[in-house]
């Protein structure tokens, strides 16, 4: 017991969590991320990398199925927690820690699973359907891959059914999990408030925090984990009301981002969206330019919402899409999923992920097309 007990204690102190956000529960997700970070835990990028599956909010039937599948893919020792609200996070994490540390229980769990852990691959196994010509005129097999609903740094609930040539997205259809299920009034998953159905106007700090959260995602996807960590820290400052600390740090982050010519070089010229295209797709008008422009726009909007001085010509907070579905808090722009599918077509998966993250998604609208 001595060695395995010590191993279990040491391992549990460094657990990895796979966090799943049910649309509308981003504050719970953020609370889980923050408190896990304080414990020295880290966020997992795939089920194989995770010890704890943390579900934030109560998933509808479609997402519940996904969660059950992911649960089977956790190698074990494993623990699952369901967190309904931010104030319940600490207790849930304690419970997960106790479960992970309970070696006899984990042994029973492992023995009860069939075989030596044969699990489904998350992207679906790589089954090929038919061939077609790619952009260089070569005959290529088409691979069907579902991006989402659970991926690191991915908008909650979004699912993109993609047709891939290699890793190039030729075509994509967008959807949102559990549209029309209980808790999501009007079928529009609200990301901007942590309420179930009840529309509530998020305050400026919350709006700024959400911008920082989206900046963190984009920076993490661009492979700059330190800057992403800084953006997350600012988000947490904003949410617990430490405005002045947040404003100073935000200014520092903006300087760091603006000075990084490597980041600029990597994000320039990808995902160009002219304003007429934005209007056609129903996206907010302040998303013009490429991913680099939109990253800086997000930082500007965060600064404005946080009450700090606006660096450049003040762009107003994100515009409100006209005719947003009911149930979405006023002031929160709604991104139509079909627009997301449209802007990623023709790009490879890595670039597409950057473009999706650059859209500064606050809430996803209903799917109108077939």
């Amino acid at each position, binding site marked *: 017991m001595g060695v*395995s007990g010590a*191993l*279990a204690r*040491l*391992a549990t*102190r*460094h*657990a*990895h969590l796979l966090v799943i956000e049910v649309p509308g529960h981003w504050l719970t997700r953020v609370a889980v991320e923050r408190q896990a*970070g*304080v414990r*020295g835990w880290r966020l997992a*990028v*795939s089920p*194989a*990398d995770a*010890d704890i599956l943390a579900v934030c909010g109560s998933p509808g039937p479609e997402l519940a199925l996904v969660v059950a599948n992911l649960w089977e*893919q956790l*190698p*074990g*020792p494993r623990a699952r927690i369901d967190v309904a609200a931010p104030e319940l996070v600490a207790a849930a994490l304690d419970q997960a820690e106790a479960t992970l540390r309970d070696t006899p229980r984990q042994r029973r769990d*492992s023995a009860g699973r069939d075989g*030596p*852990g*044969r*699990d*489904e*691959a*998350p*992207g*679906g*196994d*790589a089954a090929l359907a038919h061939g077609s010509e790619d952009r260089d005129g070569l005959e290529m097999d088409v691979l069907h891959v579902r991006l989402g609903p659970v*991926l*690191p*740094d991915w908008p909650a609930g979004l699912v993109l059914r993609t047709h*891939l040539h*290699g*890793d190039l997205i030729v075509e994509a259809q967008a959807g949102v999990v559990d549209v029309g299920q209980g808790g999501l009034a009007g079928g529009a998953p609200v990301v901007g408030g942590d309420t179930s159905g009840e529309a509530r106007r998020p305050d400026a700090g919350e709006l700024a925090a959400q911008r920082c959260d989206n900046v963190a995602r984009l*920076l*993490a*996807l*661009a*492979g*700059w*984990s330190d*800057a992403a*960590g*800084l953006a997350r*820290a600012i988000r947490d400052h904003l949410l617990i009301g430490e405005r002045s600390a947040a404003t100073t740090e935000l200014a520092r982050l903006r300087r760091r981002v603006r000075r*990084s010519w*490597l980041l600029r*070089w*990597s994000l320039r010229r990808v995902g160009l969206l002219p304003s007429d295209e934005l209007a056609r797709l129903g996206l907010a008008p302040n998303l013009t330019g490429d991913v680099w422009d939109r990253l800086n726009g997000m930082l500007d909007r965060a600064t404005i919402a946080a009450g700090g001085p606006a660096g450049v010509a003040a762009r107003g907070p994100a515009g409100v899409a006209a005719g947003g579905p009911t149930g979405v808090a006023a002031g929160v722009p709604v991104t139509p999923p079909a627009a997301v599918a449209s802007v990623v077509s023709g790009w*490879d*998966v*890595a*670039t597409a*992920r*950057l473009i999706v993250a650059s859209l500064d998604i606050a809430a996803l609208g209903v799917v109108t097309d077939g």
Partner: protein
Amino acid sequence: MAEVPAAVSGGWAPVAAGLLGTLAVAAALLDGALAGRAAGVRSGMGRSAGEVARLLRQRRRTTVAADRLLWRIGGAGLLVMALMIVTVVPLGRWTLFDLDVGVVWVNALDVLAWAFVWLTGWGANSAYALVGGYRFLAHGLAYELPLMFALVAPAVAASSLRVGEVAAAQQGLWFVVWMPVAFVVYCLGVVAIAVWGPFSPALGRDVAGGVTAELSGVDRLLFLAGRYALLAAGAAFAVPMFLGGGAGPLLPAWAWVLVKATVLLAGLVWLRRRVPALRPDVFMEVGWLVLLPAVLLQDLLVAVVVIGG
């Protein structure tokens, strides 16, 4: 000082492996500490120990219809590569394998990364892992030729492919001083074969960990350890190639080799915190249109200096 190192008996191989392991562990500790500092967590240094404990306690898993043999060969291969590289790195007066074509030997081994990383991605039969594997190859197409020509420069300057003689040829002036382009390209190559920092899109978050998406338990431990070991072996090999080998005041030669390797390794580890990823689709042009011509010019310059002098 100009003596060429002598081969020692194969019985010393565990010592060489131990030194490589120590360097790799030091790299992991430093990375954990830097990551911890960035995240504002106190237990930074303990991270690597915790990670090892976690992975030792974790179950191995496999995916549906994986090619398990090739998958596991790929995962364990990086560590083997690193061990084979350090056999030709002289530690002061001693070397394990005094091969007269040591430089080509290292080159042959770094090519193995193509096989191992791709196999780890392909073998799992998972779309994300496969995308990761191909991203590594896309990086490989961009870094491999510049890396090969970067290794040519010191060999030409020393008129030898024997690693010990290359080190001994830097009596007055370290090669890093007058072939900086080759040194920078070499370091980029080392970072790339270790799938480290700016060259980690193959393990990207956007594809759920890419090559490592399906690895768990001891398989993941071997792959991650292999990355640190490759980084350490690459830093160690840079010492005789560019950093004057064991040359230095006061300390004995073997100590200088270790000091220089450690400093370079720390620099490579730190690099990860400072820069975003070099996406393969944009790095490809840089590799062919900037790095390759630059390193060829460097080779030409070195050749002219050697013939003229």
